[in-house]
């Protein structure tokens, strides 16, 4: 009984955050606040100006000759793929770039200004390819293939890439029999919706510092929502034993999803493997973060057909969504480098590839009552977009 009495009743109480006093006094430590001393190297990234191109050559000689430049890496140095689900990326592009801003080379130098200058001195020759800017076109057979060897990528068992297409994942959800239910509905609304890519824009920009000791032990400090995923994925891609790699995630100044999974955090680790003993810091400037070096929320094109029925709680609904893949940081330019087709799906037609749901309603009254407000929006479309 004594223990029961001691238990505080938290319901209805206002409880301070555990870290709030540090946060209001300026004592809270975020990743960019960590101090690494004067041996700290600053990383900058050379990025693709093209949405889709073959890399013909990369000349780093002029940049390497710049005093104060300690290391330059390209895709040649890191052959393995990386990615949270579909392993479709390289830390630095190899052979081909697939979106504007894709990392092509990384520099570590003794100052940020020098790293910036070195990036300008890297010469990359490209052969331009046809880009893809629209998810629906990207999912169509006419689209140029962004990942010609999509089917060879490593994936977990819940991701379904479609070989010979740009479709990274295709799944269907079906329940009930929508087709038989439409005719009993009072009104049907069919619409198409588009949502653009969305940037998360945390006030704290992405920042990560990596250090590889002479013994091979690796430490990564990152503004991170996924320290364990980052350790697992980065270690595997770089051939580091997981027991030799540690990821430290201090306070995060907002993430909202964009600091989850793995994006820019792999880059300073990759560069740091070339300069053992030196901490290497990559801090994205606001305009960089807001372009394509990290992830953004996926853009969508969706078609939806739903209906209203009198006296029922459920109604038939089917929808088809084609989205650009968020974990690929491909924004404006080459959106559907990969296309997700998500389809809460319709009836049971095995023919329909992208089809959608129907929650079969319990129909209490089949009598269509006037739904004039909805009727204006009714489009008994004859096209067979679900079929």
């Amino acid at each position: 009984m004594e223990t029961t009495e001691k238990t505080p009743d938290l319901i209805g109480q206002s409880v301070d955050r555990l870290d709030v006093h540090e946060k209001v006094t300026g004592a809270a430590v975020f990743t960019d606040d960590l101090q690494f001393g004067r041996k700290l190297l600053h990383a900058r990234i050379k990025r693709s100006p093209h949405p889709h191109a073959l890399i013909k050559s990369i000349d780093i000689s002029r940049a390497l000759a710049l005093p104060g430049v300690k290391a330059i890496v390209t895709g040649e140095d890191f052959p393995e793929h990386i990615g949270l689900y579909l392993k479709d990326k390289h830390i630095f592009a190899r052979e081909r770039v697939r979106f504007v801003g894709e990392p092509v080379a990384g520099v570590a130098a003794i100052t940020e200004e020098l790293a910036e200058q070195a990036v300008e001195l890297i010469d990359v020759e490209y052969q331009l390819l046809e880009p893809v800017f629209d998810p629906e076109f990207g999912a169509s057979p006419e689209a140029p293939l962004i990942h010609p060897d999509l089917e060879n990528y490593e994936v977990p068992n819940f991701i379904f890439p479609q070989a010979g297409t740009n479709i990274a994942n295709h799944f269907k959800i079906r329940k009930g029999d929508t087709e038989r239910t439409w005719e009993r509905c009072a009104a049907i609304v069919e619409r198409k919706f588009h949502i653009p890519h969305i940037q998360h824009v945390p006030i704290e920009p992405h920042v990560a510092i990596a250090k590889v000791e002479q013994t091979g032990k690796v430490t990564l400090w990152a503004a991170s929502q996924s320290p364990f995923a980052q350790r697992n994925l980065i270690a595997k891609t770089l051939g580091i034993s997981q027991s030799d790699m540690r990821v430290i995630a201090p306070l995060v100044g907002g993430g909202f999803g964009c600091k989850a999974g793995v994006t820019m955090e792999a880059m300073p680790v990759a560069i740091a493997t070339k300069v053992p003993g030196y901490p290497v810091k990559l801090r994205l400037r606001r305009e960089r973060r807001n372009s394509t070096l990290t992830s953004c929320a996926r853009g969508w094109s969706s078609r939806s057909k739903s209906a209203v029925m009198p006296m029922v709680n459920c109604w038939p609904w089917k929808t088809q969504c084609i989205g650009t893949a968020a974990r690929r940081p491909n924004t404006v330019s080459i959106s559907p480098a990969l296309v997700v087709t998500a389809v809460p799906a319709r009836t049971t037609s095995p023919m329909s590839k992208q089809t959608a749901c129907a929650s079969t309603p319990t129909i209490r009254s089949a009598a269509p009552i006037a739904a004039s407000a909805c009727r204006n929006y009714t489009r008994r479309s004859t096209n067979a977009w679900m079929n």
Partner: protein
Amino acid sequence: MAYHNIIFTLNGEAEAVVVPSHMTLLQMLREEMVMTGTKNGCAAGECGACTVLLNGEPVNSCLVLAVECDGQELVTVEGLAHDSQLDPLQQALVEAGGVQCGFCTPGVLISARALLDRNPHPTEADVRAALVGNLCRCTGYVRIVDGVLAAAERA
């Protein structure tokens, strides 16, 4: 690259620093003084996370050169609490739940301090106007405004 000897007061204490011409006040605070309470969000004067008081006026320290502070008075978030007592604004923001990730908080506190120093009894509109240059992505601002108004009432 030219270097300059500058002196100023920071949170009430005299400081002397050597800075290159192009160094911003934000860089001087974070990198030279290792006063990391002031945050670098955009380095372009848009987010307000780096707001400090320069002679009592809130400024984006990313847009002020360090050399401009020669002979001036600076206050950062680290200078708000005294003698282990939070500033009433800090206390009110804690109680109102106006802090989440905490990255915008230092700038918010400085902008709000400047407001209350010149207008101890602001309206909600005054508070919102004073915080217009401080972006917050977590709270939705309502609890921040509540906290500033509560601090004003208490003073």
